[in-house]
């Protein structure tokens, strides 16, 4: 077997990302500290190039290209996630620049690791073989373990890294055992063969069910769904804020992308079984995430629970896809999931960017109390936070409302109107803790004990990105059609 040029060409964006990562890590020791920003801009440039390439593929011929004897397939579905992941990573790098300077962890490896994690995610979204899915997941996770602990002077960062590592490796072990059982059933790790084997063996086979449950548990850890969410708040709170944003957004999107492909393309024959399983998980996630988020005082921890809750909403769309019957059965559900994650990414990134900017006496202001009176001192930052919080709560006319609307519509169409009603009640509960942040910013005076009022660590590039995020959150809330049709056009390749 030889490597064919067409295979490498199909993976050109991934190759560019990996190569840039290597160049950035290699150039780091020879770059003077004052010029480290150039490495970041090099990474952003490479991402823009990849975005251009993938965008060109989408506009010219959005067809399925298989490469490396069907280990990866670049199709419209993969391209949707790729576009999302490039943009999210680019934004993360831009928001890292001022944050890392303020925290004094300005390391060149940082950008290299972000790009390596991104390449793992790119493999995950286009993998159609359990081996490549596992490899992509590990490449992403191992880079993220390191990045979580990058703030070595802070014990919290190290502790978060240790916890993330233990639970991440544990979940990979469970996922892998499920993969080995599926291999035993199908004699192949390709998703198409597994779907065929399940078709012939029937869905009653206990081994099939055990393997499905193990894989569901392994992925639930990565998605941070209750009851496998324990690592999320600790890791989100301890990690540097820019990494928390990356974790909450990119790793979640990539995990969902791989998760959906495995369960729809590989285990689609079992959808009656897994839709019940994920129905229970999604309700548990909504209940626990919302209730615990109410009592949080640290905003990063509150957003961690919020990210758990959002995983619950996404799972509702996924359950609707599994329950939908007829020819177009799963399409509205899957399209709503993809849209939800795209919108979630931008509002969460925006919220974390504002938190990362907020400095209090040289330290990061992480408590919700630190936001007191922000509207008076930094009206613009407070307004941005207001928009992102309203969007996370799902209040119209923001994009968060559109995201929830399509998920609930998909649930109603799949005959799960009661589930949509339950989710709606919990959306109202969640408005309480998002609006509390807004209330603290606009209505409360800062307590007299706070010595130094919060300052902002910002840069022109970050302001530009934040402006784009706000514009996106509001514009997609008012005109969601382009995103809806993009998601619908990308979802069709899934059965």
């Amino acid at each position, binding site marked *: 077997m030889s490597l064919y040029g067409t295979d490498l060409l199909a993976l050109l964006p991934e190759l560019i990302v990996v190569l840039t990562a290597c160049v950035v890590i290699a150039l780091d020791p020879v770059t003077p500290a004052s010029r480290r920003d150039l490495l970041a801009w090099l990474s952003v440039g490479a991402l823009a190039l990849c975005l251009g390439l993938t965008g060109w593929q989408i506009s010219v011929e959005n067809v399925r290209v298989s490469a490396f004897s069907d280990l990866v397939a670049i199709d419209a579905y993969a391209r949707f996630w790729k576009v999302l992941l490039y943009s999210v990573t680019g934004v993360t790098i831009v928001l890292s620049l001022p944050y890392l300077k303020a925290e004094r962890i300005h390391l060149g490896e940082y950008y290299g690791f972000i790009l390596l994690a991104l390449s793992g995610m790119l493999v995950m979204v286009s993998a159609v073989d359990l081996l490549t899915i596992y490899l992509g997941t590990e490449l992403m996770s191992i880079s993220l373990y390191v990045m979580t602990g990058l703030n070595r002077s802070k014990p919290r960062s190290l502790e978060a890294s240790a916890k993330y590592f233990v639970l991440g490796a544990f979940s*990979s072990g469970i996922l892998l055992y499920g993969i080995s059982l599926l291999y035993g059933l199908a004699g192949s790790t390709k998703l198409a063969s597994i779907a065929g084997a399940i078709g012939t063996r029937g869905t009653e086979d206990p081994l099939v069910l055990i393997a499905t449950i193990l894989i569901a548990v392994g992925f639930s850890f990565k998605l941070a769904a209750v009851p496998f969410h324990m690592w999320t*708040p600790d890791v989100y709170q301890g990690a540097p804020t820019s990494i928390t944003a990356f974790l909450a957004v990119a790793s979640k999107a990539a995990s969902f992308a791989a998760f959906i492909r495995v369960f729809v393309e590989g285990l689609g024959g079992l959808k009656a079984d897994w839709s019940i399983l994920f129905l229970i998980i999604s309700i548990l996630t909504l209940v626990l995430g919302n209730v615990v988020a109410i009592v949080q005082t640290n905003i990063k921890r509150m957003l961690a629970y919020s990210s758990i809750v959002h995983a619950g909403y996404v799972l509702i769309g996924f359950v609707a896809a599994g329950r939908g019957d007829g020819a177009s059965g799963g399409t509205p559900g899957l399209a709503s999931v993809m849209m939800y994650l795209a919108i979630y990414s931008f509002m969460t990134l925006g919220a974390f960017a504002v938190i990362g900017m907020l400095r209090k006496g040289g330290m990061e202001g992480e408590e919700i109390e630190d936001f007191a009176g922000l509207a008076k001192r930094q009206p613009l930052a407070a307004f941005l936070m207001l928009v992102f919080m309203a969007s996370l709560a799902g209040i119209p006319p923001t994009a968060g409302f559109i995201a929830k609307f399509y998920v609930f519509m998909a649930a109603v169409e799949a005959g799960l109107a009661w589930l949509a009603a339950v989710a709606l009640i919990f959306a109202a509960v969640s408005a309480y803790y998002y609006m509390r942040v807004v209330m603290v910013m606009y209505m409360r005076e800062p307590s007299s004990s706070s010595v130094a009022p919060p300052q902002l660590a910002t840069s022109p590039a970050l302001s530009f990105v934040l402006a784009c995020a706000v514009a996106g959150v509001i514009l997609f809330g008012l005109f969601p059609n382009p995103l809806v049709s993009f998601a619908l056009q990308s979802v069709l390749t899934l059965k």
Partner: protein
Amino acid sequence: MVPLSAYVAVSAVLFIIGLLGVLIRRNFIIVLMSVEIMLNAANINLVAFSYYLESMAGQLVALFIIAIAAGEAAIGLAIIIVVFRGKISTNVDEMNLLKW
């Protein structure tokens, strides 16, 4: 000839040992070892299935897993060393700065 079920039984026992090890043991290094046991349980499955199904893919996957397990162990030990420097302890229960 050893029947396939024997291999699967051994691997299931190893998997459960690893699972319980992660959940019960409180030393970070032993937790790491338990995770490695879980990965090796999957390897035994893959190689046994590969032999009985006469398909090479399983052995290939097992080789990949061995390589990744080495990388994961390296990262894990590096994290343990950095944490140990700060705390002089590898007990998981003493990592309690972050909770609720």
